[in-house]
């Protein structure tokens, strides 16, 4: 029942997005604009600032992710459909997992465009270790989305949710961003510092487990008024 409900919620979000394409286009445009503006600022006479690419990649992911989280839950707020989801005869944490997976998929699409763009604009060897980079980005995205989904769901009925979401989310996800940036920097070295990158991936995976456990544990009490 848990998995079925989570997948149903994911499928429903996907069906809505296919019809509207609102969140995908907004998120992509925002992420791409972010990277382009940074490239104008940090690439002088064809020479990018050393190691800037890693930070810019993760800033773009974090900002675009915040936008996607806000928009995803705005949909559930419009007709109070989140309450209808919470009435489903399944563990309420399944609703959380379904919404979180939707954000992860959306960010994965954004990252599939962001990574090659950052590599191109900043002359960064991001694709030298593609499997390790995928693992790093996936672990970072899950960590960010797990915390973000919980906060976005909590704030869905708050009047100042657009202000409160980044205020709550950014401090909590600083460790994820640090690990993501440091891991990406390790992969960009020549030759790539594989042991360090693996260490950062492991750290991110540990954070994912902690964040997910806390979120699954607290979602139901937080969502019950």
């Amino acid at each position, binding site marked *: 029942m848990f998995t079925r409900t989570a997948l149903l919620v994911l499928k429903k979000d996907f069906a809505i997005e296919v019809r509207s394409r609102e969140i995908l286009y907004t998120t992509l445009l925002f992420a791409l604009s972010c990277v382009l503006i940074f490239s104008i600022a940090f690439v002088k006479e064809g020479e990018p600032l050393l190691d800037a690419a890693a930070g810019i990649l993760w800033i773009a992911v974090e900002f675009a992710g915040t936008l996607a989280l806000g928009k995803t839950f705005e*949909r559930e707020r419009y007709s109070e459909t989140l*309450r209808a989801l919470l009435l*489903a005869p*399944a563990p309420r944490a399944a609703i959380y997992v379904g919404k979180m997976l939707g954000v992860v998929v959306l960010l994965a699409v954004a990252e599939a465009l962001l990574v090659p763009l950052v590599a191109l604009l900043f002359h960064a060897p991001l694709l030298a270790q593609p499997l390790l980079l995928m693992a790093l980005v996936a672990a970072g995205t899950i960590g960010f989305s797990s915390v973000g989904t919980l906060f976005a769901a909590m704030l869905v009925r708050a009047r100042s949710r657009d202000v409160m979401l980044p205020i709550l989310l950014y401090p909590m996800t600083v460790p994820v961003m640090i690990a993501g940036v440091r891991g990406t920097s390790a992969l960009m070295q020549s030759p790539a510092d594989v042991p360090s990158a693996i260490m950062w991936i492991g750290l991110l995976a540990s954070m994912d487990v902690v964040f997910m456990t806390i979120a699954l544990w607290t979602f139901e009490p937080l969502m019950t*008024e």
Partner: protein
Amino acid sequence: MSDFDEVRLLDVSRHFGRRRALSHVSLTARAGDILGLLGPNGAGKSTIIGALATLVAPTSGEIHYGGQRARALGDGLRRHIGLLAHELHLYPELTARQNLEFFAQLYGVHSGPAIDTALERAALADRGHEEVQGFSRGMRQRLALERSLLHHPRLVLFDEPFTGLDDHAVGIVAGRLRELAASGAIVIIATHDLDLADGLVTRVALIREGKLLSDEPAAAGLRARYRSVMGRA
């Protein structure tokens, strides 16, 4: 077994910070009842509906579903609860059929014939493929009503179910509520519209400022009774 034929609020209070939304409310509704929760805006009607729907946790007191607490009945309890709130719980970007299919699947209902029946009952059989955002308030309300009843709930909770409906649609919804009660559902309606409640509800609970002022069988002259109780309090 999480089905039940009676729901009981026992000394339920609910505070939101310093605001007291419900104060020591005790109330029972049985299968076949259409219980009207009547009172002015802010009386606590929606809080009672939310608490019965397991969306609002009482600060104190207990809610029993057929003699058992919600916690004891687990997530399966919600299979027996249908809620139609003022906000209609529909996805405007999806079609009427997609909305019904999603909620049917969420409740484990075999979607095919159930969806067709629900669309027919909502008088939307020929518009099932249209996005809900193009519907009038009345059409959405009828669809939302059928959405909330897709899984044949035992406890049917309606919060202001007649908002935005014309007289014809009100008649259809009222007929549907009587039908549900006759089939053994416990129907609870929160409304401040006395004219619509008069002649529909079988029992009346009058509420003001979170307090239950009266719980009695419905009788003729509901408006006069309402004025008398509210004026006295």
